């Protein structure tokens, strides 16, 4: 009934949507299977994209030609550049989004791609032939053939929802879980684990007293995620901040004996950095208040997301406690918070293309790999989609390294270290934070993606122009000087010591008190020279400033990174028998056998593999 496809994508969340789009844009015929095609790229939890480290990932997805950035821009109700004061490596774009619009924009994009077909159903088992995935069987009893399969099951595999002492099967509240697929995969030698996550209550904005809260507005000059022109953010809605208090905590504690977290009915691990409110009260008993963000769910809705109040306590306990929060005295609730447990497959079972080791042509992306977050899921979907397509075309795999992208850090962490709690990206996970900035994701990645046929020529041209503008600007600053009479007023205003004689402009810019726009204000010929990049003026100015101010640190990290990548270029055969190497420590032998690294760089990042083990490996590998 259905034709054979190149790629079947199972699941229509953030990972599935990016996977389908990327594979289709690389000329694969794609079938997207989702149990509810009306909920494509649903924001199941927080109605926001980006933030610290995650915002960098969205920029990277955009630079590679994915759509999460564009969709976020189109559906944004607020934009903020976080960490403005903390240096360019920390600048992190974040949008608050209209949940419904976000999903709608994604569906429009997918529908606009010719190579994507849709099928509303549930995949219940995999068709495997000679160790290769060749299609799926569905709940409706349909068998669909394909050259490869990408599984993006989110929280649906054996999903179980907890509210207080009640629990029931479900992939999200109001949606059925998927049964049988985990068991099916385990028959092929996969091991699976269990994870837990949670979501806060949604409340009625009309019942809140915002005058008792602190308003948090969007940026005065909002930026956006996509490097492409258009979709500027012009109007914004505010969020609000309020706090819990000891009365709230006491009321919540009354429900602890019925909490699935504390009475033993949830055994699996939740994310440490996104704990439930009961977990926060329990672990940090000395704190008498916790911060809450009151976030609107969209333009045309009164529904509010209570960020920071994730809970699986009984619903009556949730309601009673919430009424004691400042501004929440008369709160009416749309739906209570809940916790959900679901199956994941420890990601040590993956290659760096996100293809699985036990079954060829099968790819995993998103929460199935133990990650959390839309951004983390979306970028994995993108990488899986690209690689599924490239493999069909018999082209070289697309792998990003740790010094090229947060996406590279994420996948490398997953496949070499695995994860036992939901994995979220932090900038501190990146060794080369100074290199992996949101302002240069296009410079880092667009050319690479353009080469494989994904990022458009338009994108590449913009990158080239931006680089040219940067070069011209940096050169200008190194050749031209600032004279005391023209610049000392500025310096005085900025509390920077006055010039006694002429000084090169780049030396001047290196002063922490000055920025590039101060200099551009005075140095008119500089602005004129950059006239040819006026469409990208702000981006180019930022690049010039960062290049001049942070040169030393950038060079240092680059040379460190160069050392590292040398190890990445030494390949390890998949059939290597580590137990034969008597010089390796026993721990290294076990860890390497489990993780099966494909190159020495990966091996070096496996805990338990010491530098001397690496030297030993190096000797064997280069023989």
């Amino acid at each position, binding site marked *: 009934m259905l034709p054979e496809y190149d790629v079947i994508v199972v699941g229509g969340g953030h990972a599935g949507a990016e996977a389908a789009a990327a594979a289709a844009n690389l000329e694969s015929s794609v079938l997207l299977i989702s149990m509810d095609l009306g909920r494509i790229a649903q924001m199941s939890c*927080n109605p926001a994209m980006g*933030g*610290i*480290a995650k915002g960098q990932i969205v920029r990277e997805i955009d630079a590679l030609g994915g759509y999460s950035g564009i969709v976020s821009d189109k559906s944004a109700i607020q934009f903020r550049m*976080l*960490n403005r*004061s*903390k*240096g*360019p*490596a*920390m600048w992190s774009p974040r949008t608050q989004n209209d949940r419904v619009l976000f999903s709608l924009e994604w569906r429009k994009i997918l529908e606009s791609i010719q190579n994507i077909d849709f099928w509303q159903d549930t995949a219940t088992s995999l068709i495997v032939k000679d160790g290769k995935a060749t299609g799926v069987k569905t709940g409706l009893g349909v068998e669909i053939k394909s050259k490869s399969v990408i599984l993006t099951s989110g929280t649906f595999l054996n999903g179980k929802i907890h509210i207080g002492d009640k629990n029931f099967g479900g992939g999200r509240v109001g949606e059925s879980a998927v049964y049988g697929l985990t068991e099916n995969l385990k028959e092929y030698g996969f091991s699976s684990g269990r994870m837990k996550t949670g979501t806060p209550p949604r409340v009625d904005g009309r019942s809140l007293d915002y005058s008792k809260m602190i308003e948090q507005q969007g940026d005065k000059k909002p930026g956006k995620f996509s490097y492409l022109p258009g979709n500027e953010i012009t109007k914004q809605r505010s969020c609000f901040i309020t*706090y819990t208090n000891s009365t709230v905590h006491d009321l919540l504690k009354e429900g602890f004996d019925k909490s699935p977290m504390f009475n033993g009915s949830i055994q699996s691990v939740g*994310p*440490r*950095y*996104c*704990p439930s409110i009961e977990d*926060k009260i329990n*672990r*940090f008993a000395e*704190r008498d208040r*916790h*911060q*809450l*963000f009151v976030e609107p769910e969209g333009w045309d809705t009164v529904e509010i997301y209570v*960020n*920071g109040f*994730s809970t699986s306590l009984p619903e009556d306990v949730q309601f009673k406690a919430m009424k004691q929060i400042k501004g929440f005295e008369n709160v009416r609730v749309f739906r209570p918070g809940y916790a959900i447990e679901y199956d994941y497959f420890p990601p040590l079972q993956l290659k760096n293309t996100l293809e699985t080791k036990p079954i060829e042509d099968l790819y995993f992306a998103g929460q199935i790999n133990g990650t959390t977050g839309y951004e983390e899921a979306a970028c994995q979907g993108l990488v899986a989609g690209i690689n599924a397509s490239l493999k069909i075309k018999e082209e070289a795999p697309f792998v990003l390294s740790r010094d090229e992208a947060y996406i590279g850090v994420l996948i490398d962490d997953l496949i070499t*270290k695995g994860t036992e709690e939901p994995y979220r990206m*932090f*900038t*501190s*996970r990146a*060794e080369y*934070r*100074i290199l992996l900035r949101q302002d240069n994701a296009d410079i880092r990645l667009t050319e690479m993606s353009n080469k494989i046929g994904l990022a458009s020529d338009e994108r590449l041209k913009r990158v080239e122009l931006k680089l040219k503008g940067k070069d011209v600007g940096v050169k200008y600053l190194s050749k031209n000087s600032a004279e005391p009479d023209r610049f000392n007023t500025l310096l005085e205003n900025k509390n920077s010591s006055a010039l006694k004689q002429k000084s090169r402009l780049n030396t001047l810019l290196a002063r*922490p*008190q000055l920025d590039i726009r101060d200099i551009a204000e005075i140095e008119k010929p500089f602005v004129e020279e950059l006239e040819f990049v006026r469409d990208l003026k702000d981006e180019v100015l930022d690049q010039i400033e960062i290049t001049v101010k*942070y040169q030393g*640190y950038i060079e*240092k*990290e680059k040379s460190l990174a160069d050392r590292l990548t*040398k190890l990445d270029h030494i390949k390890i055969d998949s059939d290597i028998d580590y137990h034969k*190497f*008597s*010089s*390796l*420590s026993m721990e290294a032998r076990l860890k390497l056998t489990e993780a099966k690294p494909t190159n020495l760089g990966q091996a070096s990042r496996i*805990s338990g593999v*010491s530098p*001397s*083990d690496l*030297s*030993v490996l*190096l*000797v*064997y590998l*280069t*023989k």
Partner: protein
Amino acid sequence: MNKNETIVALATPQGIGAIGVIRLSGPESIAIVSLVFSKNLTQEASHTAHFGRIKNGDRIVDEVLVTLFKDGKSYTGEEVVEISCHGSHYILQDVIRLLTEKGAVLAKPGEFTLRAFLNGKLDLSQAEAVADLIASNSEAAHKVAMHQMRGGFSDQIKKLRADLIHFASLVELELDFSEEDVEFANRDDLKDLIFKIHKVISALVESFKSGNVIKNGVPVVIAGKPNAGKSTLLNALLNEEKALVTEIEGTTRDAIEDESVIGGIVFRFIDTAGIRETEDVVESLGVKKTLEKMKEAAIVCYLFDAARIDLKELDLIIASLKEDVQKSSSELLVVANKSDLLEKDKRAIIEEKYEPIFLSAKEKRNLEILENRLLELVNLGKVGEQDVIVTNSRHHQALTGANEALMRAYEGLDSGLTGDLLAADIRQSLFHLGEITGEVTTEDLLDNIFSKFCIGK
């Protein structure tokens, strides 16, 4: 391993003879040596030898013979320079330190062989031997290294590093969780901490530069009656360790000194042979005359012949020595030589009275007990210069790197350096300190964050 780096190490075993060979391998070998050699070698042909002087500024470090091997024509297959120096431990260390200051990097254990292998200069069976060597070396090296940092300084570094990790976590915390309601790193406290660590590290770095231990070794006076077996013991110690470095005939000194490296520590043995005998019983043993030497000795080794023992005399001598070492605040080791010839009942008496080390210098029996005892005294900080801690070039390099990064962070705190760069400097410093105490990973930082702070909206 980075093959663009030029590596340097001592190629001959520690102090095996009158000559020590330092080898460099890598693209900058000739250029780096030219920086400290009395003539420019960059235009010289391969396989040529050049006589000249190694200079540190105006100071002549040694007269040496330099042999050049151009790219592809050497043991490692890379550009190689071999410098034949005089075999003093101090000179060799000094030359190596000078070369590392000029850009060479200390070779890791087996790295020359490894490079040779990678450049196709060795066959597989040789390479497998290298692999075994690396595995055993690196473990031993770490233990030795930690052992060398005596006087509680390694513990201090560990503790300061733990404090720095805590602060690094705070800095990372305010970067990754700035949106959340968490406490941030107090800049003044951070500055205080950095300054504290900087002071400790600077002292350590200085101790390496001016360290008397590394220059002169731990002075050990071997005293005893003629024929007690002093020379035999000395030779046994030196042979045992294959560690004779140099034999300097002292023109202004009465004694002959010999250096020996035991467990990575240089000991300078002062032989008191050849001192005139007098009527006085004690002085006849050369002990009184040796007092002068003993003042500068850290350890006095009193050796007696167990086969020809006079308990009364021994009592007198040891009592006198005990007084002397107390005055010069050195340590006394009593050694019973030829102990295999000792009668059982006498042995029991001596053992109870003086707790001596029983050995046989001639048979080389129980020498290791003496060596361990010497090392123990050094490692417990009982002897030697109290402020000299770092005797290991690799430590010196790591500490210098750590200090540089710390200073950047310190200055950065004053000039308003942004958090991302501050974190980069602190990370770098932690990385270097970690080279001494063990590894740090970003996981450590995250674990610290999650265990101490309430994170999460």
